[in-house]
C-alpha cells in the first residue's frame, strides 16, 4: 500500500510542477507587459490573467498539497482504502482535464472573464469570446471544483479509517476524533492507545469545509452554463458574488491547511523532537472549521448596495476573520518553538520550511490589513492585495511544497536528492527575488495602483519597470529546482558539495548573463524604437482633457473639426461636428475620455481600424481632446 500512495503522490507532484512552470511563464509575460517590455494585446493579457490565476492557484498549489496530503497520511498510519483511492485517482483526472480546459478556453478561445469570472461578466464579452469559450471555461472550472469535492471525500474516507484508533464506530464521532476533539473532550472522543496525530487535524478540517464551500459554487456554475445558451435564465449578481466568495475564501485554505499538515509533519522530524503543542491548539482548529466558512464577505467589504443586508454581513466578518487568524498564530507558536534550540540542520528542505514559516507570519500580517475594513477601503482592488497573496502563495505555500519535495524526494523517487547545495540556492534566491517582486506590488498598491489592469496609469510605470529584472530572475531561479529534480529522478550520481555549488554558480552566471542581455536589449530597443503610441498618446492628452472639462473648449480649431468629419464622421455621430454616422457608437452618448479616444483611434477596436499609420500622433491628440470636450454638447 505504501507503494500505491508513493506513486499517487508522485503523480500529483509531477503534474502540479508542470503547471507551476507554465503559470510562472504567464506571470512573467504579464508583468513584463505592464512594464512595457513586450506589450501584449489587451484580450491576450486578460486571458493570460485568467489562465494564470486558476492554473497557479488550483493546478499548481492546490494540486501539489492535495498530493502530499495522501503521503503524509500514509506516513502517520492512515492508508488509503478502496473508496479513498478511487476518489484520489478521479481527483487527478478531473483536475488535469479541468486545468486543460481552462487553458484551451482562455489562451486558444480568448475567454478573459478573469479567474473569478464574476457573474455576469462571462456573458458580456465585448465581442472578445463566444458562447463556446464561455461554456468550455465554466465546465472546466466545474470539473476542477468537482476534483476538490472528490479529494475531500478521499481524505474523509481515509481519516476515519482504522489508522485513527478511535473507540467509537460512529462516523460523526470518528470525524470529531480526526478533527482533534479528543484533545478537548477525551472521554467522548476516546482513542486507544494514542491521540490522533496533529497532522490529521488540518486535513480533516479542510476536507469538511471544502465540501460545504464548493457545492453552492457548483450549482452557480451549472446555472451559468445554462445561461450561456439560454440568456433568459438569471440570478442575482449580488447573490452570485457572495456564492463565489463563499467558495473563494475557503479555497485559499485548501492551500494553507494541507501546507500546515506538511509543516506539522516535517518540522518535528527535522528538529528531532515532538511538535511543541498544548491541547489549546485543538481549540484553534475548532475555530477554524467554523470560521473558515463564515468569512467570505471580507472579499467584498466595498459592496454594500442600498436596501440589502450586505453592510451588516460585511461588518460581522471582520471579527470572524480576526478569529480565523488564531489557528495561524498558535501553529506558528508551536512550529517556531519546535525549532527553537533544537538539532535543526540547515538543509534545502529545512531552509524552505523555515523561510516558509517566516513568510506565513509576514504575509499573514499583511492579510490582517486586508481583513480590517478601515484599512481595506484603501488597499481594496489594488496591487497591495496581489502582493499579499503572491507572498503567501509562493513564499509560504510554495515553500512548504518545495520543502516537502526536497524532504520526500528520496522516499518518493527511491533516489538521493542530487544536490542539497543547489536546493539551498534555489530557496534563498526565490525568497529574496520573491520578496522584492511582491514587495514592489505592495508599495504600488499603497500608492493606489489598481490590480487587474493590462496597462497601468503612467505614474506607476517606473516601479513596474524596476520589478522586471527581479521577476525574470525569480523565474529563472526555478531552473535550479527543475535541474535538481530532473537529475534526482534520472538517478544522477550525488554530487559532492563543492561540485554542486560550482554547478549552481554556473547556472546562476548564465541566468545573470541572460538578464543582463535582456536589460541592455530592452534599453537599446526602447531608445531606438519609434515611440509606443498607446501609452504616450494617452499621457499627452491628459492635459487638454483636464482643462476642457465642464466647459466647451474654444481651442478646438476648425481644422480638427474638419479632420474629425473626414476621418471619423462617416461612422460616428457627434452633434458638435454635425456628423451622423451609425456604424460605431454614438459619441454624444458614449462621452469618452480623451485618453480612451486616443487609445481607440491608435489601436482600433472590434471593427474599427487602427489610425496609427493614417494620423500623426499630434492629430490623434487633437482629435481626442476635441471629441472628449465636445461629446454630448
Amino acid at each position, binding site marked *: 500500500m505504501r507503494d500505491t500512495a508513493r506513486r499517487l503522490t508522485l503523480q500529483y507532484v509531477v503534474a502540479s510542477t508542470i503547471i507551476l512552470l507554465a503559470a510562472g511563464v504567464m506571470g512573467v509575460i504579464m508583468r513584463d507587459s505592464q512594464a512595457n517590455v513586450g506589450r501584449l494585446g489587451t484580450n491576450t493579457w486578460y486571458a493570460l490573467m485568467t489562465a494564470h490565476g486558476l492554473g497557479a492557484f488550483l493546478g499548481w498549489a492546490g494540486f501539489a498539497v492535495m498530493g502530499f496530503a495522501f503521503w503524509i497520511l500514509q506516513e502517520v498510519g492512515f492508508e488509503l482504502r478502496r473508496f479513498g483511492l478511487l476518489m484520489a485517482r478521479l481527483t487527478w483526472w478531473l483536475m488535469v482535464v479541468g486545468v486543460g480546459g481552462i487553458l484551451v478556453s482562455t489562451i486558444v478561445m480568448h475567454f478573459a472573464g478573469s479567474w473569478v469570472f464574476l457573474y455576469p461578466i462571462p456573458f458580456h464579452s465585448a465581442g472578445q469570446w463566444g458562447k463556446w469559450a464561455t461554456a468550455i471555461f465554466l465546465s472546466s472550472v466545474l470539473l476542477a471544483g468537482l476534483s476538490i469535492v472528490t479529494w475531500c471525500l478521499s481524505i474523509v474516507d481515509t481519516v476515519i479509517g482504522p489508522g485513527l484508533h478511535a473507540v467509537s464506530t460512529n462516523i460523526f464521532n470518528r470525524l470529531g476524533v480526526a478533527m482533534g476533539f479528543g484533545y478537548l473532550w477525551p472521554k467522548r472522543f476516546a482513542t486507544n492507545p494514542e491521540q490522533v496525530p496533529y497532522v490529521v487535524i488540518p486535513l480533516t478540517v479542510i476536507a469538511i469545509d471544502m465540501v460545504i464551500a464548493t457545492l453552492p459554487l457548483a450549482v452557480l456554475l451549472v446555472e451559468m452554463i445554462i445561461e450561456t445558451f439560454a440568456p433568459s435564465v438569471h440570478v442575482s449578481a449580488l447573490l452570485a458574488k457572495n456564492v463565489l466568495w463563499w467558495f473563494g475564501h475557503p479555497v485559499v485554505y485548501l492551500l494553507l491547511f494541507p501546507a500546515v499538515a506538511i509543516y506539522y509533519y516535517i518540522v518535528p522530524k527535522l528538529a528531532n523532537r515532538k511538535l511543541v503543542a498544548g491541547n489549546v491548539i485543538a481549540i484553534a482548529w475548532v475555530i477554524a472549521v467554523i470560521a473558515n466558512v463564515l468569512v467570505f464577505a471580507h472579499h467584498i467589504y466595498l459592496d454594500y448596495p442600498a436596501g440589502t443586508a450586505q453592510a451588516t454581513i460585511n461588518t460581522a466578518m*471582520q471579527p470572524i476573520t480576526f478569529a480565523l487568524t488564531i489557528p495561524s498564530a498558535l501553529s506558528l507558536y508551536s512550529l517556531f518553538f519546535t525549532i527553537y534550540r533544537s538539532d535543526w540542520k540547515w538543509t534545502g528542505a529545512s531552509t524552505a520550511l523555515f523561510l516558509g514559516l517566516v513568510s506565513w507570519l509576514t504575509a499573514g500580517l499583511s492579510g490582517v490589513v486586508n481583513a480590517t475594513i478601515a484599512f481595506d477601503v484603501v488597499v481594496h482592488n489594488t496591487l497591495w492585495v496581489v502582493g499579499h497573496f503572491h507572498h503567501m502563495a509562493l513564499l509560504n505555500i510554495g515553500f512548504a511544497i518545495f520543502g516537502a519535495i526536497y524532504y520526500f524526494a528520496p522516499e518518493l523517487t527511491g533516489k538521493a536528492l542530487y544536490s542539497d547545495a543547489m536546493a539551498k540556492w534555489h530557496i534563498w534566491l526565490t525568497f529574496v527575488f520573491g520578496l522584492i517582486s511582491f514587495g514592489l506590488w505592495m508599495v504600488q498598491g499603497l500608492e493606489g495602483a489598481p490590480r487587474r489592469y493590462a496597462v497601468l496609469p503612467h505614474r506607476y510605470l517606473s516601479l513596474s519597470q524596476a520589478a522586471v529584472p527581479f521577476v525574470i530572475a525569480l523565474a529563472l531561479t526555478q531552473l535550479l529546482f527543475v535541474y535538481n529534480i530532473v537529475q534526482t529522478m534520472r538517478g544522477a550520481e550525488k554530487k559532492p558539495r563543492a561540485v554542486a555549488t560550482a554547478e549552481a554558480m554556473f547556472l546562476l552566471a548564465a541566468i545573470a548573463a541572460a538578464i543582463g542581455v535582456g536589460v541592455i536589449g530592452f534599453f537599446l530597443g526602447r531608445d531606438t524604437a519609434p515611440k509606443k503610441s498607446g501609452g504616450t498618446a494617452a499621457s499627452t492628452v491628459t492635459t487638454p482633457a483636464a482643462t476642457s472639462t465642464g466647459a466647451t473648449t474654444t481651442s478646438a480649431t476648425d481644422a480638427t473639426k474638419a479632420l474629425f468629419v473626414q476621418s471619423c464622421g462617416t461612422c460616428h455621430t457627434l452633434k458638435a461636428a454635425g456628423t451622423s454616422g451609425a456604424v460605431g457608437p454614438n459619441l454624444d452618448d458614449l462621452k469618452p475620455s480623451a485618453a480612451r479616444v486616443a487609445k481607440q483611434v491608435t489601436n482600433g477596436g472590434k471593427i474599427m481600424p487602427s489610425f496609427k499609420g493614417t494620423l500623426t500622433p499630434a492629430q490623434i491628440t487633437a482629435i481626442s481632446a476635441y471629441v472628449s470636450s465636445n461629446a454630448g454638447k
Partner: protein
Amino acid sequence: MGGTATLIAVFYGVVVLISIGVVVAVAASTISRGPMDAVKAAHRERNWLFIVIALLVVLLFGTIFFIPYGKTAGRNAQVVHVTAFQFGWLLSQKTVRENVPVEFVLHSQDVSHDFGVYNAKGVYQFQVGIVPDYTQKVVHTFKTPGRYDILCLEYCGLDHDSMQASLEVVP
C-alpha cells in the same frame, strides 16, 4: 500616498520588523543551542492565545468605528447619479462644490464595476463597488477644489483599464 495608506505602511513596517527579530532569534538559537523545556513551552501556548486575542480585540475596537457603511449625506447634499457601463461612466453632473457632502447614487448597466476616485496628482481618495441590478450609494465630501479622476477598479472586460471619467470640484 494618502493618510491611511501611510498609516498602513508604518503599521505593517513595524510588525514586520518585530517578526524579523523573532525569527532571527529562533534561527540563531539552533546554532548556539541551550536548554529548552518543551513541556513548559507547550503549556504556555495558552498564554500566547490570550495575548493574540487581546491584540486582535484592540485592533478590532481601534478600527471598527471607521467603516464606510451607513453614512448619510444630510439635506443639503449634492446628488450625482452615476451610470457605469462597459466601458465608460455617465455622470449626471461633472461639477460639484467643495466642503459640501456629495451623495453618489450608482448603477451599472451590465457587469460589476467599481467607482474609484483619485485626485489630479493620482492620490487615491475612495472607492465603492457597483453590482448590476442594485443601487449603491456613497457619500464623500471633497475638501480641495480641482480635477478628480474616476477609474474602474473592478475588472469588467476588455477596456477595463481605460474606463475613465473626471469630475471637477469647484470652491
